[in-house]
């Protein structure tokens, strides 16, 4: 007869198991090798409409070395950084305010979910009519696409502070300011960080969408240029470039998260 308790325990244990770093890296490498192999094979059979990985890498090198990619990166990078900064400042600030001040929540919470449910693309025509096509409206579009994980994550965290933590603070005579410093901020940090990590990737999508739809500029314009001249090597090279940057940025986000919530390391396995 199968021992169901044990197999469930084993499954839980497996869920919590953290493999050695070199095993993880090996798995990552293997999946990447597989992806490249498939890409190469597909590319070799599709020809010019879908060039192989090797050709893409060469095209990327050309675009970086003498092409428009680096100057475009500066333009997009600025939009990206401003977007991400606003996401973090406004997302965390508004998330805390919504969670801790019930009147603010009563006034605004519905709108946030309405905005979250609305595809931002649908708002682009109105935004361009109201604010034009310059940097400001671009930031607005990018932020609307990518702020929600931080906003909702922070809100969720600040609303779930266990009463016991608040009791301890009260019994030991904490002032409101001390409560924020010792309890609210540290408790909410992992929630906010998890939202920030998502937003790091989503802000890239937001940046590109804003550049696409509001008078093309930056990396999105370079991408569009490749599409217009039906140069699949060009388009794939830019896409690969975006992917590499995304992986790097999310990696940095993970490092920061690990540093900030090191007290939770073991408990989240």
């Amino acid at each position, binding site marked *: 007869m199968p021992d169901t308790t044990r197999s469930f325990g084993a499954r839980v244990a497996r869920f919590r198991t953290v493999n050695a770093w070199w095993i993880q890296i090996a798995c990552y490498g293997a999946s990447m090798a597989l992806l490249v192999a498939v890409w190469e094979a597909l590319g070799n059979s599709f020809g010019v409409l879908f060039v192989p990985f090797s050709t893409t890498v060469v095209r990327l090198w050309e675009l970086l070395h003498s092409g428009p990619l680096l100057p475009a990166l500066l333009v997009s990078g600025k939009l990206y950084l401003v977007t991400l900064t606003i996401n973090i400042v406004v997302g965390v600030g508004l998330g805390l305010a919504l969670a801790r001040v019930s009147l603010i929540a009563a006034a605004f919470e519905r709108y946030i979910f309405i905005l979250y449910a609305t595809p931002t693309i649908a708002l682009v025509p109105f935004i361009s009519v109201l604010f034009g096509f310059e940097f400001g409206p671009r930031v607005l579009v990018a932020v609307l696409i990518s702020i929600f994980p931080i906003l909702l994550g922070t809100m969720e965290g600040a609303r779930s502070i266990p009463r*016991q*933590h608040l*009791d*301890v603070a*009260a*019994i*030991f*005579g*904490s*002032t409101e300011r*001390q409560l924020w410093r*010792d*309890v609210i901020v*540290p*408790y909410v*940090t992992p929630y906010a960080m998890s939202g920030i990590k998502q937003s790091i990737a989503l802000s890239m999508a937001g940046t590109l969408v804003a550049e696409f739809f509001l008078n093309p500029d930056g990396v999105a314009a370079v991408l569009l240029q490749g599409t217009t001249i039906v140069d699949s090597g060009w388009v794939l090279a830019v896409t690969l470039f975006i992917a590499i940057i995304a992986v790097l940025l999310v990696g940095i986000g993970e490092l920061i998260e690990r540093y900030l*919530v090191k*007290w*939770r390391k*073991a*408990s989240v396995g």
Partner: protein
Amino acid sequence: MTESAQARLVVENACLRYGALDVLAGLNLTVGSTEIVSIVGPSGCGKTTLLRCVGGLNQLNGGTIHIDGQRVEKPLPSVSMVFQHFGLFPWKSLWSNIAYGLKLRHRPKDEIASRVAEAIELVGLKGFEQSYPHQLSGGMQQRAGLARALVMEPKLLLMDEPFSAIDAQTREQLQFEMLRIWDRRPTAMMFVTHAIDEAVLMGDRVVVLAGRPAHVRAVREVNLPRPRDRSVVSSPEFIKLREQVWHDLFDQPGGTQARVQ
């Protein structure tokens, strides 16, 4: 009964409602300045609620609570509390958890350092200062919870089932350590527990509550000698008291039948 001149805590006619539910209705209680009062009562009868009111975490709807003559309307600095589930901050090291109360009060750095070191020594956690709570066993976490309360040198210590979430062996160890700590620096204490043995072992008096609303059903003086050690547990006096409290808890009022659940 303790003379009221010596009383540290005086609860008079305490009333508290949660919506339509009367939790406390006219409850009276005093605790002397170095007295340990154990409080037992059926689950849900309002023990935690009473303790929270004394700690200033909940407000009464009627009646008063005074500590050293001062009316309790918010948490007072002379009162500390030990929580059933420890209540350590998982993001703070053990040292920082214990130093928490002193830091809130802006004590000088060297004073904090020496008092925290002393408290850590007292509860036997030396060497674990830099550990985070998740790296400690339940018993060690509650030792830390105890140290965090004791380091404040409270005049009144509130304990809400402090050892109930700890394994039986460690619990016994902690009971006697708690008695030893109290012997070194006697202070007033309200000790809520579900364990009758523990109530008799720790207390100078055992107050038996019944709900609802919570009222005092019986008070038993515990005249066991202090300092108390393991030999107390097998003394006839201890066993007699334990039986009395058991009957106070489980006998139906007016009846002679014991109700065993």
